[in-house]
């Protein structure tokens, strides 16, 4: 266990190192010159050169990367080119909003997905099941920005139940969280259904029914716990999809999270922020995968760590 943990940690660190290198190289070959953005249009060649030297952008790429990396391991992500603030401060200020949104999204996804999956499994083969599975396909095929705009139009503009955008109260969270969760709920309902169908086929379920327990009791106490565990472990793997989703959802709803931060930074070629958000997202993804790998055998002893 300890050996496996160590190996996985080293592997994760190497993956993050690779991600940082590739992102850095990509941003380095960027045709848009960040110095021009900072200096403005009317800057003289001398000013541009000064800024370039100040930021260390005149150094060779590997030197710049080494500087960035040695800062990064000490928790220093550099300063934003345009806002002159520490990137870590900017991200820390935005992260809670994004985490809240993600928590809401995961909550919605599980609530909708698992419920529909269980219902479909119970009514397996009947029209209700078939209808639900088609619905799940609609959910995974719906572009998030269209879902977001549709929810905004119906529930905020027409019905006025929720605010049109922004951040602050619980009612601000509802629409963005549902938007973020809908796509995943489609996948979860399918996985939950397969898992439940698989469990319901087992002998012990038949035994439980045979000894006279009611259908509902067998379903809730005997089948559900076994069916749900492998699904819960999938949440860790989902983080990557959510990291992409928040960029879109935050943009549609004007949610002040790291997705918006990254999006604005990309438009202004503010490289340290882009790097920072990419690294934070990649860390979250790697961490999610690690958790999934370690949680799965804990809740399901049939799966052993290698």
């Amino acid at each position, binding site marked *: 266990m300890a050996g496996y943990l160590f190996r996985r940690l080293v592997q994760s660190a190497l993956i993050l190192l*690779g991600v940082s290198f590739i992102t850095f190289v990509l941003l380095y070959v960027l*045709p848009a010159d960040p110095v021009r953005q900072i200096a403005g249009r009317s800057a003289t060649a001398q000013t541009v050169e000064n800024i370039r030297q100040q930021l260390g952008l005149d150094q060779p790429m590997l030197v710049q990367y080494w500087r960035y990396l040695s800062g990064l391991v000490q928790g220093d992500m550099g300063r934003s080119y345009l806002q002159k603030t520490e990137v870590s401060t900017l991200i820390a200020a935005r992260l809670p909003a994004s985490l809240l949104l993600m928590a809401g999204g995961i909550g919605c996804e599980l609530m909708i997905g698992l419920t529909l999956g269980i219902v479909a499994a119970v009514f397996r*083969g009947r029209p209700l099941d078939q209808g639900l599975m088609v619905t799940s*396909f609609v959910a995974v095929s*719906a572009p998030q920005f*269209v879902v977001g705009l*549709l929810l905004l139009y119906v529930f905020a503009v027409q019905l006025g139940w929720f605010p049109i955008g922004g951040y602050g109260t619980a009612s601000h969270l509802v629409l963005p969280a549902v938007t973020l969760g809908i796509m995943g709920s489609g996948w979860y309902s399918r996985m939950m259904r397969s898992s439940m169908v698989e469990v319901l086929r087992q002998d012990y379920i038949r035994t439980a029914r045979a000894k006279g327990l009611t259908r509902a009791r067998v379903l809730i106490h005997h089948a559900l716990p076994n069916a749900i565990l492998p699904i819960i472990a999938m949440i860790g793997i989902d983080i990557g999809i959510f990291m992409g989703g928040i*960029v879109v959802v935050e943009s549609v709803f004007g949610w002040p999270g790291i997705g918006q931060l990254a999006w604005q930074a990309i438009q202004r070629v503010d490289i340290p922020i882009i790097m920072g*958000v990419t690294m934070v997202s*990649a860390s979250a993804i790697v961490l999610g995968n690690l958790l999934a790998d370690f949680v799965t055998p804990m809740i399901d002893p049939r799966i052993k760590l290698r």
Partner: protein
Amino acid sequence: MARVTPEQPEEAILAELTQRPNAPVAPAGALRRLLRRKLALFGFAIIALVVGGAVFAPLIAPYAPDEQLFEGLTLFGEPMPPGGGFLMGTDLLGRDLFSRMLYGAQTSLLIGVVANGVALLIGTIVGVLAGYLRGWIGAVLMRFTDLMMAFPALLLAICLAAIFQPSLWIVAMVIALVNWVQTARVVYTETTSLAEREFIAAEKTLGASGARILFKHILPHLVPTLIVWGTLGISVTVLLEATLSFLGVGVQPPTPSWGNIIFENQTYFQAAPWLVFIPGAAILLLALAFNLVGDALRDVLDPTQRGND
């Protein structure tokens, strides 16, 4: 859906066993089984409709996609709602939405198919090489695949698309670059298990060359998987293209794409919701169609996946 009903378990298991492909499934039988599924037919119908609309756009479209029509705006300069003189209404610049949707279908399909084709190609090459050669080449390729998995895909795509001046082909390549990973993993798993089968060992004993085994035995067995992933993948690429275009880093106006029609008009969507929801519905339907067909193909071509449905 092929279901294993509890009343006749033996037949079902027997059927499953006999259908397990030692050779790739006969295409004629597969096609017949596919056409018996209503959902797959629905998917095919949508795809045929969109392909038809895209191919015959110049014939069908009542106006040029970028023609700003004088009668396309009201006296107050507002877009016209659907119905009346314009089937789907007009956009903020007085252009006919129906014509733009038809030409937009060309963009969405082209990018969907090209990006997905390239992604499938990269994924197959990486997966087959890693799975068949193993050794250090396999290790390096798969570690690189793991690395790509850790990238926030959409963020990477947005970054890349914003870095390069986004043209149609650049957008397609960007999407391909972030989308090959899944295919590579599936192909890798499949190839490693194939490489351990007896008939491959037998071929080796008979002295077949590595290339012969790869092209005559491994690749044909991968075809069903690739068809399934290729179809499901188009829906992913269509959605990704729409998302990038919606954010303004995809296909650039004036070339219409379903995503950038929404991008151009979203600020006005409270007053003119059709400008957002007609293209939105089109994106959803096209992605849904490829998902339905892909899922049906998986059931038909890959009996090992059956029984869960």
